[in-house]
């Protein structure tokens, strides 16, 4: 018998940690890394939930999530390189000109 | 004792110890043979002073690595500097866990199969090797980064790009085998190449075999793809600042990686422990003697590939970086994708083990490649044509 609660608490923990990082860090790359941590939490959650219901749909969602993460990493890192070329820094604060 | 070994867990434990010991010896002697083969190719004799025929040379080398002063240069990123060789060595060592060495074994000769001569036999053995292989890039990258040295850094950058580029055709070439065999278990892949109407995958898909071989050269950072340690351009590459045992770990890790890669390609394309027609090497032979024979055959095939690695190293010059990238993205990738597509077509037609169909497709693909490469005359030099025109007059004259 396997218990789902620890998995869900763990995935929530990862999600929360990723959120804290996303909110508080200023380096663009670390911000994206934080979103990847949130992805990890979600993957874990999906798999656990799928297992609870006894089918692999959770795993398939997680696989799609992986492809989304790959897309996100590719585009985001491309953008980061562009931004870095433009301003010479990775500080997110430098891209706050749209604050209104 | 035999009763204990009939449990797969204890048998695997024994296998692990045996493989690790054999592997460390094999790595040390790979270095010896690397030096010997380079010497033979260059009409020299090679190491012959330590022991008879120089056979104790690995011990001397090991002693040298151990006893040299272990320097950590100032301004390196110390934790990463220490971690990088460990990653390179450790990752190279754990890939062996899933290689099938000797098929099933009947230890007490009662006709029933007791254990498999394999450390672990997961259903995803092939993916496991791929995953481990994809981790191995960190040793090089971190080594280059932690050095705090521009040359090493260049090596790290090159290596990252190279590994990422060559992993894709490698995966595609493996997909060809996976589709043909219909499984990810390495033992099943070996078994799928044995028996009536089944041949080694190299006969069916020589092109995929060749692509996998080329990408293995790239993944193990061996000449002609050793741009990460191009000593003429980059001093020492990613291990410029390393010395003593830390360098030794990089060095041994490279050979361990080569041995894993050889074992991998042997399992995928050359039938693992199997030799057609030889008694004792068929799936039905499960005695202990047959297991030892199978392990010997497997090791022999791996040794042959190691020889190929070394032979190529002392023959070919290094690729230039743009050639390297072009080879991967414009050469190997389309061909391997076409091969994977063709393999699915074969499975759909139910001809996946038919030699004329598979070979015919390979030949057609080769002809197509030749025609296309003839039609597309890209420049062979690395001259960049889209650069702004420079004045050929010297600045002094122009003034």
């Amino acid at each position, binding site marked *: 018998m396997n218990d789902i609660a620890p998995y869900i608490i763990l995935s929530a923990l990862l999600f929360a940690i990723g959120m804290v990082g996303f909110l508080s860090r200023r380096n663009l790359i670390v911000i994206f890394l934080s979103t990847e941590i949130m992805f990890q939490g979600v993957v874990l959650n999906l798999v656990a939930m799928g297992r609870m219901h006894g089918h692999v749909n959770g795993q398939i969602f997680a696989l799609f999530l992986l492809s989304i993460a790959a897309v996100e990493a590719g585009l985001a890192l491309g953008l980061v390189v562009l931004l870095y070329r433009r301003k010479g820094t990775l500080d997110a604060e430098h891209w706050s000109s749209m604050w209104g | 004792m035999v009763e204990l070994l009939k449990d797969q867990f204890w048998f695997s434990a024994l296998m692990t110890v045996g493989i690790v010991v054999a592997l460390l010896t094999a790595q040390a002697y790979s270095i010896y043979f690397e030096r010997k083969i380079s010497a033979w190719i260059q*009409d020299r004799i090679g190491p012959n002073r330590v022991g008879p025929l120089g056979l104790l040379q690995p011990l001397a080398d090991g002693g040298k690595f151990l006893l040299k002063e272990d320097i950590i240069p100032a301004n390196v990123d110390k934790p990463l500097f220490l971690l990088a060789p460990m990653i390179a060595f450790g990752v190279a060592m754990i890939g062996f866990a899933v290689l099938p060495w000797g098929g099933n074994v009947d230890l007490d000769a009662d006709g029933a199969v007791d254990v498999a001569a394999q450390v672990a036999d997961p259903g995803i053995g092939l993916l496991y090797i791929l995953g481990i292989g994809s981790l191995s890039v960190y040793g090089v990258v971190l080594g280059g980064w932690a050095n705090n040295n521009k040359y090493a850094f260049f090596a790290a950058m090159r290596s990252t790009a190279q590994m990422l580029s060559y992993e894709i055709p490698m995966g595609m070439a493996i997909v060809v085998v996976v589709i043909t065999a219909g499984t990810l278990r390495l033992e099943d892949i070996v078994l799928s190449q044995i028996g009536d109407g089944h041949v080694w995958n190299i006969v069916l898909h020589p092109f995929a075999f060749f692509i996998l071989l080329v990408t293995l050269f790239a993944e193990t950072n061996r000449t002609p793809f050793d741009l990460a340690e191009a000593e003429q351009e980059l001093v020492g590459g990613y291990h410029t600042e390393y010395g003593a045992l830390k360098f030794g770990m990089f060095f041994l890790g490279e050979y361990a990686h080569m041995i894993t890669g050889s074992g991998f390609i042997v399992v995928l394309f050359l039938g693992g422990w199997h030799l057609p027609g030889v008694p004792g090497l068929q799936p039905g032979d499960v005695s202990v003697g047959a297991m030892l024979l199978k392990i010997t055959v497997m090791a022999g095939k791996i040794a042959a590939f190691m020889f190929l690695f070394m032979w190529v190293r002392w*023959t070919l010059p290094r690729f230039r970086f743009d050639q390297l990238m072009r080879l991967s993205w414009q050469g190997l990738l389309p061909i391997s994708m076409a091969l994977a597509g063709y393999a699915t077509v074969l499975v759909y037609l139910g001809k996946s083990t038919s030699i004329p169909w598979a070979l015919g497709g390979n030949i057609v693909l080769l002809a197509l490649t030749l025609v296309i*490469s*003839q039609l597309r005359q890209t420049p*062979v030099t690395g001259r960049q044509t889209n650069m702004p025109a420079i004045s050929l007059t010297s600045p002094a004259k122009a003034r």
Partner: protein
Amino acid sequence: MIDDQDIIIVDEPELTATERLYLPQIIDGMRTTLRHMFKKTITLQYPEQKREQRIENYRGVHRLNRDEEGRVACVACFMCQTACPAHCIHIVGTESPWDDREKYPLQFDIDELRCIYCGMCEEACPVDAIELTPEYDLVGRTRDEMILDKEKLLEVFDRTVALKPRKNPKISGYAGTGDRDGCQSAGGGQ
């Protein structure tokens, strides 16, 4: 500076289809190296086997020649020290105790680690006192050991004189009698 007319723009070679695959060339190269793998090696096992050596013009360790009476032949003229491109010769000359010359070297040091073994000292010597010998296995544990002084250089002479006799032993003519046959040095008249 490079002039325009000095620049040659080379056309890129057109590769055939098989050449673009690299494979035939690679196989060709591998065949070559495989052939070499079975060729006879020409290696000499050095300490046991030694190469046949040319005695006359081999440029190895220096020696200071002795004359017939066993004295150092050098006259402390500083020609070699001047000629030496590596500045590895150091001479302290003093008044000679013998009649046949005015000066002799009180001290004569050659730093064998700085020496580039060019043979200029040999060329420069007016009395052929300094010569290079066929001896090449000079080793030492310290840098000081590798600075050969007068005694050591004379010892080298004693060791090698049998192998390579002194080229021009007619030192006796030097004292001013005018008998200078065979002396090839440029700075003859001192």
